[in-house]
C-alpha cells in the first residue's frame, strides 16, 4: 500500500533542473534511503515534498490527496515532518519549549491559548529519554553542542509524530556511537512511521535501509536493496566516494 506517489516531478532553478522528471512510490511504513552525489537533488526532493519549494511540473499525491500546491503548514497537518540538513531548532527557546512547539497535533490558536505548561511525562518524557536530553529540559537550545542540536531536532520530529518523516543527513557531525544510536531509533520507528532518509554514511544506510534510491542530476538512477545498489555499475560510476 502506497503512502505517497510522486509523478514526473520537475523543478527548474533558472537553467538548472534540480529535480528532473522524478517518479517514485513510497510505501507505508518503509524506510527509504535517498543516495546520490552532492547536488543530485536529494534535498530539493525533500523540499518539494514538504512544501519548501514549489514544483515546476509534476504531482505529489499523499494518502490519495494531491498536495502539490498545498501550503507548507497544511502539508505538515496532513502528516509530513521534516528535519533539515542544517540543524534548525529554535535557539532562543529551551529544549522543552522546542519539544512543546513540535508537539503540534492541535495547531490552532484557540487550542494553543489553553496550553500553559508542558508536563514531562508520557511521550514527551519518552522522546527526551530516547535522545538523552531529559536532564537538559531548561537549557536554551542555543547552548547545546552540535551533536545535541541534531538530537533535539530528531526529538522534535518524534514529538511531532508525523506519518511521513523526511530526514536530511541526520547523522552529519555525529560520532560512530551516536550514529548507531540513531540507526536504532530509526529502526524502532519503521512500521508505524514512514521515513525517507538522505544519508552519506553507508555504514548507517546498511543498518537501516530496506529500499534504496539513487539520484543523479535530478533523476532517478537506480532503485533496489542496498546490496543490489552497491553492486550496480551505473551507481559506481557516478558515486565513487563509497
Amino acid at each position, binding site marked *: 500500500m502506497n503512502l505517497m506517489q510522486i509523478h514526473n516531478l520537475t523543478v527548474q532553478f533558472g537553467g538548472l533542473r534540480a529535480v528532473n522528471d522524478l517518479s517514485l512510490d513510497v510505501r507505508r511504513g518503509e524506510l527509504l534511503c535517498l543516495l546520490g552525489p552532492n547536488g543530485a537533488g536529494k534535498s530539493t526532493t525533500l523540499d518539494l515534498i514538504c512544501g519548501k519549494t514549489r514544483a515546476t511540473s509534476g504531482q505529489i499525491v499523499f494518502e490519495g490527496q494531491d498536495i502539490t500546491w498545498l501550503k507548507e503548514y497544511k502539508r505538515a497537518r496532513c502528516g509530513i*515532518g521534516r528535519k533539515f540538513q542544517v540543524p*534548525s531548532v529554535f535557539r*532562543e527557546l529551551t529544549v522543552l519549549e522546542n519539544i512543546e512547539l513540535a508537539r503540534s497535533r492541535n*495547531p490552532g*490558536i484557540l487550542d494553543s491559548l*489553553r496550553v*500553559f505548561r508542558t508536563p514531562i511525562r508520557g511521550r514527551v518524557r519518552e522522546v527526551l529519554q530516547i535522545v538523552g536530553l531529559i536532564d537538559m529540559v*531548561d537549557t536554551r537550545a*542555543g*547552548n547545546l553542542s552540535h551533536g545535541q542540536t541534531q538530537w533535539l531536532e530528531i526529538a522534535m520530529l518524534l514529538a511531532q509524530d508525523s506519518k511521513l518523516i523526511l530526514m536530511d543527513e541526520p547523522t552529519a557531525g555525529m560520532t560512530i556511537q551516536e550514529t548507531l544510536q540513531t540507526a536504532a531509533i530509526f529502526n524502532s520507528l519503521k512500521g508505524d512511521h514512514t521515513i525517507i532518509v538522505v544519508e552519506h554514511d553507508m555504514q548507517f544506510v546498511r543498518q537501516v535501509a530496506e529500499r534504496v534510491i539513487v539520484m543523479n542530476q535530478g533523476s532517478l538512477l537506480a532503485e533496489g536493496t542496498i546490496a543490489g545498489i552497491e553492486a550496480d555499475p551505473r551507481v559506481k560510476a557516478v558515486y565513487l566516494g563509497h
Partner: protein
Amino acid sequence: MNRNNRADYLGHIVFILAILLGVPALLGFDGFELNTFARYLSLAIVASALALSWGTAGILNLGQAATFGIGAYVMAMHLKLVASAGNPDGLPDFMGWNNVTSLPWFWLPFQSLTVTLILGLALPALLAWAMGIFMFRARITGVFVAIITLAFLVALQLWFIEEQRFTGGQNGLTGLAPLDLFGWSVDTYSLGFYYLVAGCLIAALVIGSLIVRSKVGLVLRAIREDSQRVRYFGYDVARYETFVFSTSAAIAGWAGMLYALVLEFASPTYIGVAFSLAIVIWVAVGGRESLVGAAVGAILVNLAEGRLSDMFVESWLLILGVMFILFVLFLPRGLYGLLRQGFGRIARLREGQGPKDARAQESAQ
C-alpha cells in the same frame, strides 16, 4: 518553572503594588498629580501593547499610534455628542462651522456609551486584522512591516486632518463632556479615576501575559526566530501573527480611550509619527521582551519628560533620541534585560558556581 519566571513573577507583584499603593501615597493623593500619573499609566498600556507584538512576535508596528488614536477619537466622539446634546439636532459645534447640517451616519453609533466602548476596541482590532491579513498572508516581515505600518499612520493622520467637517481637523475634538460611566460621573482628578486607569493597565497586562505565557506566546517567539521553520510543524503563521497584531491594536485602542479621558480632548497629534516613535523608545528603554518592562519604560520616560522638559524645552527631543541610541547600543534588552541579568547572576552565585562560570553562561545567552 525556572528561576527567571520566579523573578518575573516577583517583579509583577512589586509593580502592581507600586501602582496601586505606592504611587498614590507618594503623590499625597493630590488630584492634579494623580491625573498626570493616570496619563502615564494610559501610555504604559499602549507601550505594553507594542511589546506584545514587537517583543513577542518580532512585529515592529511603527503605526501603533494609529490604533491608539482611533481609540482616543472614538471616546472623544462620544463625549462630544454628549456635550452637544443641547445643540439643534445634537450637532457638534465644529460641524456647524463647517456647514454640516445633520449628524453624519458614522457619528450616530457613538451616542451610546456601550457601543462606544465596544468600538474603541473593535475598530482598531478590525483595522489591524485587515492589515494583518494583507501583510502576513503575503509573508511580509521585519522592516517592511515597519514601513507599511508607518505609511498607514501617516495616511490616516492626513485623512483626519483633511476631513475637518467630520473630525475637527487640526484642532481635533475639544469641548468634551465629562464621562458618565453607567451612573458614575467620572472626575478625572480623583483617586477613583486613577484606580480606573490603573485597573485597566493591570487588566491589559494580565491579558497580555496570559497570551505570552500560553502556547500562543511560545509559537510567536518561535515565529520571531524562524517563521519558516514554524510552518513545517503545522502552524498557520499568518494567523498567529494577525492574532497578536490585532490584539495589540485593541489594547492600544483601549489605551487611547483612557488617554482622551485624561486629557479631555482628541488631537491628530495622537496619530502622529513623533508620538508613534516615542512609544517605540519607551518600549526599547523598558525592554521589549517584557510587557511590564515596557510599561515601566513608558512611565519612567514620561516621568523624566514631565520633570526635565521644563528645563530643556528646546532639547528634550534630542535627549530622547540620544537615550534611544544609547539603549539600542548598550542595553538592547532594555532595563528588563539588565534586571534579568542581575537576577541570573545572583541566583548562580547562590548556587555556588564560580563567577567565571556564570559569566560564560551569560555571554552565551
